[in-house]
């Protein structure tokens, strides 16, 4: 009989404890990130899509040669001072995000961006062209950068490089 009343008491009290916990969560800010509208701030050294700033690139071909999976395609025309870059493309189907290209780029044009949504409908659309093919021959050192829709400027991370992961 004592057990019976103890059971009722523990049922009521534990239910009330649970209810107070859940009601507190109603006033808390949701942890959800509304993905396409809001994006996670990635840590500073996060390896997203590789980006090449063609205004800096001098088509030295080091990145293409270093690439262990040969996913960078550089085409040039001319020789010496008349050398032009006609194509700079990266095939992200092959890319392994090893960052060898960015570490050895002497102009600093090729960088790891913070863009992480890699999903596409067609694998051909994972081959990114950095030169506008309609513009034709552009001098290597003055090539115009194409404003690609998918490119997101990495956000300024005020915290120390590696601590960015916690934010």
């Amino acid at each position, binding site marked *: 009989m004592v057990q019976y009343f103890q059971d009722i008491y523990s049922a009521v009290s534990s239910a009330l404890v*649970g209810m107070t916990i*859940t009601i507190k*969560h*109603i006033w808390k800010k*949701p942890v*959800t990130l509304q993905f396409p509208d809001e994006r996670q701030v990635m840590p500073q050294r996060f390896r997203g899509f590789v980006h090449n700033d063609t205004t800096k690139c001098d088509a030295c071909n080091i990145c293409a040669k270093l690439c262990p999976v040969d996913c960078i395609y550089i085409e040039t025309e001319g020789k010496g001072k008349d050398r032009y870059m006609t194509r700079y493309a990266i095939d992200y189907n092959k890319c392994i995000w090893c960052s060898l290209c960015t570490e050895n780029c002497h102009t600093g044009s090729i960088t790891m961006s913070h863009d992480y949504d890699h999903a596409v409908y067609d694998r051909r659309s994972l081959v990114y062209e950095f030169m506008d093919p309609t513009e034709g021959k552009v001098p290597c050192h003055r090539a115009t950068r194409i404003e690609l829709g998918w490119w997101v400027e990495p956000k300024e991370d005020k915290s120390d490089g590696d601590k960015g992961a916690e934010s």
Partner: protein
Amino acid sequence: MGGMSDQGLHVTGAALMATLMFTVMALCAIVFTWMERKVAGFIQSRYGPMYTGRWQGWAQAVADMLKILGKEDIIPAQADKGLFVFAPILVLLGSLLAWAAIPWSPGFIAADLDLGLFYIFAVSSMVVIGILMAGWASNNKWALYGAARGAAQMVSYEIPLALATIPVILNVGSLNTQDIVIAQQGGMFNWFVFHDPFLFIAFWMYFIASIAETNRGPFDMPETESELVAGYHTEYTGMRFAFFFLAEYANLFLVAIIASVVFLGGWWAPIPGLDFAPALTLVIKGVLLVFLNMWVRWTLPRVRVDQLMHLCWKVMIPVTLLCIVGSGLWMILSGELG
């Protein structure tokens, strides 16, 4: 309306009231599905629906309803066709009929019955038959399990549900729903919840029984999606499923409204003198109780079948009987009987 006979007026009024109640039911389903998803979301530190309809995803339920109406209507080949078609209508009818005796504001009631409260409990037990019918007609083991559980649970919990209202009926001396509300006039301390400690317990007994009666968590045994797929409405699609859905949320609001009428002063505002919008007051009380119901659902884990029956027969029925005796004694001792 000089040209219309009394009977004609009566029929027109009844048809109008029925249409209005059906609209209220449909609105219930739409508003409360949205509300349920938002409450569940916030309790779990999420947002819930956010995109449909811009502001807080308010149109999500409307979109869901439109989608559900466009679905294919499937009747399983081995199902009992007649019962299968009739069951959702019966479930919907059971909850629609009960709306007739709800007093929304002074004089605004579809059917002012002398046995109003009794009538509500009587017609809402039709839902049990509908559920059992749906489970049997589906010819599916999960549906049958769900229906059997539903019938056992709802028949059991109807007893404490009705017993919990008896102390109020003792106090009022009438089963008429309008009389019950009028007896609670004059501020929130005249409401029956705060009348005496036994009525306070009776209110919570009613509330717990009403959760079980509407088959919602933590007593959602008939629909346990982890073990019974969807319970008695496993085989239902499209419009017929929508009927069950509509009935579930209409019942949810119905039990909340009955609780407000019987225990929380019906259309009377908490402070006397603020009674300028009686129907709105009643609806607000109902919505708050529905919120409480949702809060319970998204907090407590589902109980076992034997625990469910234990709670009903060994705890709630003795406690409600005690409340009846206690409340009666209170009436004698406080000299209310005169």
